[in-house]
């Protein structure tokens, strides 16, 4: 059942992004930032965890999951380590994704040339 909800909720978030593109002509960077902030706010309001329970990757795969993960990691590290968690939590939680993105971007950038369209 989670599979169906992952598809529906994930698709809905992406369609929302497309609607923003059509109505505002924002650049991809701005769209991404908007959804990261949205995810972070949903996590702060403690809505994100229940959404995750129910739609799984439908909410974590869109970039909203990145914002939510940063906030969740920060809160968890504060609970565990106190003050220092404010600074260590976010990037620790998202470290795998960022590291893989950097390394694969670098390697692919070195192997393939940009095609002109």
């Amino acid at each position, binding site marked *: 059942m*989670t599979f169906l909800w*992952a*598809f529906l909720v*994930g*698709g*809905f*978030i*992406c*369609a*929302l*992004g*497309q*609607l923003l*593109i*059509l109505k505002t002509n924002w650049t*991809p*960077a701005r769209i*991404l*930032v908007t*959804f*990261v902030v949205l995810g*972070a706010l949903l996590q702060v309001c403690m809505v994100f965890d229940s959404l995750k329970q129910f739609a*799984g*990757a*439908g909410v*974590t*795969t*869109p*970039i909203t999951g*990145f*914002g939510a*993960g*940063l*906030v969740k*990691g*920060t*809160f968890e590290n*504060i609970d565990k380590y*106190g003050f220092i968690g*404010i600074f260590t*939590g*976010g990037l620790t*939680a998202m*470290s*795998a*994704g960022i590291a*893989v*993105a950097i390394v*694969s*971007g*670098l*390697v692919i*950038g*070195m*192997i*393939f*040339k*940009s*095609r002109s*369209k």
Partner: protein
Amino acid sequence: MDRAEYAEYIKKITPKSKIWSSLLRAFIVGGLICLLGESLNALYKMWLPNYDQTQIGALVSSTLIFLAAVLTGLGVYDKIGYFAGGGSIVPITGFSNSITSAAMEFRKEGIIFGTCANMFKIAGPVIVVGVAIAMLCGLGYFIVGLFI
């Protein structure tokens, strides 16, 4: 004709059905990417029973990011993006695509000053804003925690 008038004109001549079809395409492709994420999640859970959900989640995101980088290198992701619009930008794969395509685009200016210096041109703001907002929320959470 100034900018506002031109925007109005474009709005008038854009058929309604075009908007719905682009929303539908974004919905389907974005949904499929999320479905792939959910499937990977189930697979990894089966293969790696010792991992907790946080680690499984990190692995799923990493896989999607890597896949998107390879597809970008092969020029496939751009084609998906042309078809899906927001459906290819909003998922974490779009984040990866923005890094890899910048890395490829600036390769001609050298690896250090081209690729390395420019790969976060689009994705950079995401990390900067994300980290800043997480720290701000964390500060609030810490202060509130002091009083309860």
